[in-house]
């Protein structure tokens, strides 16, 4: 079982599988990347998190040799992406932000073609195709042209294309966008499996939960530069301990409640006017909860729900960019 064009890299945890230094890229007046540094140890998952236009796709495009950076350099498995793009291609699998499939070909035809272009024999390509189709529960649709597929099904074929040759480094640009929860979970499992076997993964995502679930390290980027990095635990710690969420019956009360919460806040207070929700990071959770409850009851504010929760990456995002992730993503 040899794939002539896939280069093997020894799983050497000392060495970073992906290193980028000072990547910049501008499109006319738009700065897409503004000095991005990355380092992804072999066999780990890096989550690139950022709002629309942050530069995630640009970074992935440079690392996968599709575009050249204006300055800076990057290596994949020790190979320079600008100097030796063809060698880099033998080390990577890419699933871009939008499914790149031939819609007139069947699922099998698409994947076998990709396998052949990785240098596999047809038989081997077909064997792997069948395995992956089964894995993604698409065996029944294997022989239908992709134009009859739903968006999520196409997406999974595209992902299968990235996984087909079992390359040592995977780049997945928003891999689960458009997938239903079950397919998303299955993809996570596949990724975890590959990582367990030594594969390195760079994934971009707008699903904060996804970075939390999969990534060993998260780099938050905004306007083309890293604004924070660390494990999901570290990022959460930066944001403070617990969050106190208050759901009000009437949005008119928000201003009054905000004044109360300011007393216990240790970070930015976040309000969602439409839903009459207000959220704040607090130091001593239970104590703060008691204080706030007492005060709001005294002020006769009608509360639908109040509670403490662990911070999510949403909060990280809010804290770091001053924007709410979902708002930015839509």
């Amino acid at each position: 079982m040899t794939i002539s064009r896939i280069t093997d890299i020894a799983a050497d945890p000392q060495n970073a599988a992906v290193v980028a230094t000072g990547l910049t890229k501008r499109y006319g007046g738009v700065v897409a990347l503004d000095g991005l540094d990355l380092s992804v140890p072999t066999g780990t998952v890096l989550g690139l998190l950022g709002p629309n236009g942050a530069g995630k796709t640009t970074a992935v495009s440079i690392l996968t040799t599709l575009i050249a950076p204006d300055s800076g350099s990057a290596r994949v498995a020790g190979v320079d992406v600008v100097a030796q793009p063809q060698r880099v291609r033998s080390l990577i699998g890419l699933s871009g932000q939008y499914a790149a499939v031939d819609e007139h070909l069947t699922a099998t035809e698409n994947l076998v073609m990709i396998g052949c272009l990785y240098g596999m024999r047809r038989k081997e390509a077909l064997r792997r195709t069948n395995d992956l189709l089964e894995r993604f529960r698409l065996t029944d649709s294997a022989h239908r042209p992709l134009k009859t597929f739903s968006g999520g099904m196409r997406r999974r074929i595209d992902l299968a294309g990235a996984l087909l040759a079992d390359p040592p480094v995977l780049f997945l640009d928003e891999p689960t966008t458009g997938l239903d929860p079950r397919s998303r979970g299955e993809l996570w499992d596949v990724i975890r499996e590959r990582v367990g076997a030594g594969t390195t993964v760079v994934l971009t995502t707008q699903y904060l939960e996804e970075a939390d679930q999969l990534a060993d390290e998260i780099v938050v980027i905004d306007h083309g530069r890293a604004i924070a990095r660390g494990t999901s635990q570290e990022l959460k710690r930066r944001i403070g301990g617990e969050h106190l969420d208050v759901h009000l019956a009437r949005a008119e009360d928000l201003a009054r409640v905000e004044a109360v919460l300011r007393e216990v806040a240790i970070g930015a207070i976040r309000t969602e006017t439409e839903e009459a929700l207000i959220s704040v990071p607090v130091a001593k959770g239970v104590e703060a909860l008691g204080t706030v409850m007492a005060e709001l009851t005294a002020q006769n504010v009608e509360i639908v729900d109040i509670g403490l929760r662990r911070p999510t990456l949403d909060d990280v995002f809010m804290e770091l960019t001053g924007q709410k992730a979902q708002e930015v993503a839509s």
Partner: protein
Amino acid sequence: MSGMIRDALTIARRNLIRIGRVPEVMVFVVVQPLMFVLLFAYVFGGSIDIPGGNYREFLIAGIFAQTVVFGATFTASGLAEDVQKGLINRFRSLPMSRSAVVAGRTASDVVYNLLSIVIMSLAGFAVGWRIRGSILDAVIGYLLLLFFSYSFSWVMACLGLMVPTPEVVNNATFIVLFPLTFIANTFVPSDNLPGVLRTIAEWNPVSTLTHAVRVRFGNIPEGTPEPTSWPLQNATLYSLGFALLLIVIFAPIATRLYQRTGKR
């Protein structure tokens, strides 16, 4: 090199799978050429007289030449579509030969053109066209048509990789290809054309292609004077040389463009 051929065949195979599945391909490759032969044969073939000959037979080589030249535009629209659908980017991320995508496309378009020519030949035969020369000459004539269209596909490949959307291809090519195929001896003998047009027609490679094929098919009306211009006198050589030149110039350009397309 062998890797390049293998990859090009993989790509060509993929393009050929599409023949039966994409209705537009069928229309373009089969229906349109068929319609041309029949229309020209019945509308013009019956009403235009040329001295000493059969205009229908005279026309066939012209229609073939025009069809394969237009057939080459398929290369442009196919590649432009691949760019738009993100497939080129996918290919560019794979460890495949850098010239294989375009080479595979131009190769599969030869097959498309061959199909068109077979259809047109059958239709031509049905309306009374006959090959009156030797089989060998006829085979050379057919090969010349295919090779010319193949070379033109490389020009079209460059166009396909430069345009923003596949739709632009049609507009861009029509403006160039209609004059190219009409200011020629495709449908009327170039001797009948006035002054400058005649000179253009005589040096137009579509004319020399048509003339070469016409001669090889034995479809030159009796008593037609020998051409006076050099390109037409050496029509096979001139057409072949022109085609080779196109490949030499445009194949490297197309490969370079491929490596740069699909910025996203």
